[in-house]
């Protein structure tokens, strides 16, 4: 049995000639080029010379970005950097929220003037009366940097809780799309 297997392997090695290897290499190269043109370029760079990317739905993300950037005036969204300062009183919590539509994106950075704060970055769906909310990040820190895309229309932002004996000031720098913002 083992001898038979060895013979089979030897036979395979003999049949794999240089011309076949060259043929397979060329085939792989052609396949890679086709994949590059029909899948990778449309999906990654919005370059779709064949139109296949559009038919396969691979250009959807690039088109969504283009739509957003070319139609800023149709919504009340903003695309400038804003700096907001919020004071969290000693022993209390404060909620600062951004009203956002579904799939709007917000990039943020915040720092405190000293103490750490417990925070919950979360979103609440518009019109929801059940008290449901979805947390995106929960931690205790004196700074944070990141971004999020609103998974649903509603209010999205931070609940900061100050457990210290002195008020803590938060500086929040945001850039992105939102309708309005303020303390809640």
């Amino acid at each position, binding site marked *: 049995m083992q001898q038979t297997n060895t013979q089979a392997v030897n036979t395979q090695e003999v049949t794999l000639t240089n011309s076949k290897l060259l043929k397979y290499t060329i085939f792989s190269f052609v396949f890679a080029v086709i994949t590059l043109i029909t899948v990778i370029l449309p999906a990654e760079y919005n370059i779709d010379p064949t139109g296949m990317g559009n038919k396969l739905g691979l250009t959807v993300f690039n088109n969504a970005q283009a739509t957003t950037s070319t139609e800023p005036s149709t919504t009340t969204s903003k695309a400038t*950097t804003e700096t907001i300062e919020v004071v969290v009183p000693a022993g209390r919590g404060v909620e600062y929220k951004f009203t956002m539509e579904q799939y709007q994106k917000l990039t943020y950075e915040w720092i405190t*003037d000293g103490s750490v704060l417990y925070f919950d970055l979360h979103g609440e769906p518009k019109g929801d009366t059940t008290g449901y909310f979805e947390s995106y990040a929960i931690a205790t820190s004196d700074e944070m940097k990141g971004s999020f895309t609103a998974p649903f229309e509603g209010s999205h932002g931070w609940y900061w809780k100050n457990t210290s004996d002195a008020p803590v000031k938060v500086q929040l*720098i945001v850039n992105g799309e939102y309708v309005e913002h303020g303390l809640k």
Partner: protein
Amino acid sequence: MKNLIVMLFVGLMLNTGIAFAHGDHKMISAKDAIQVAIKVTQKLTFKDLGYKVGKLDESWKALTTEEFKLYAAQDNRYKVSAFNKDNNKVIYFLMTMSGELLQLNSEAKF
């Protein structure tokens, strides 16, 4: 033959790595470098972050984007300047091409 197959495999793996991991993912543009400088300036008006310039006074809050300029882009570093016309002072930011702030001073000597 084996070497040829190994070379092909390694070559394909390297190319796939770039396709999946976005080779230039961490590079930022000069415009983004200016945005980094704007954010850092805002933060410095709020708190001393340990740079040579210390905490900046309130007048720096009012700086507009036009007052931030790309001073130089060389040796894989961006140098951005910020001019405060209220007190006639300039501060300079040295950052990596990925936007990490390395130094900040008012002499442009890095």
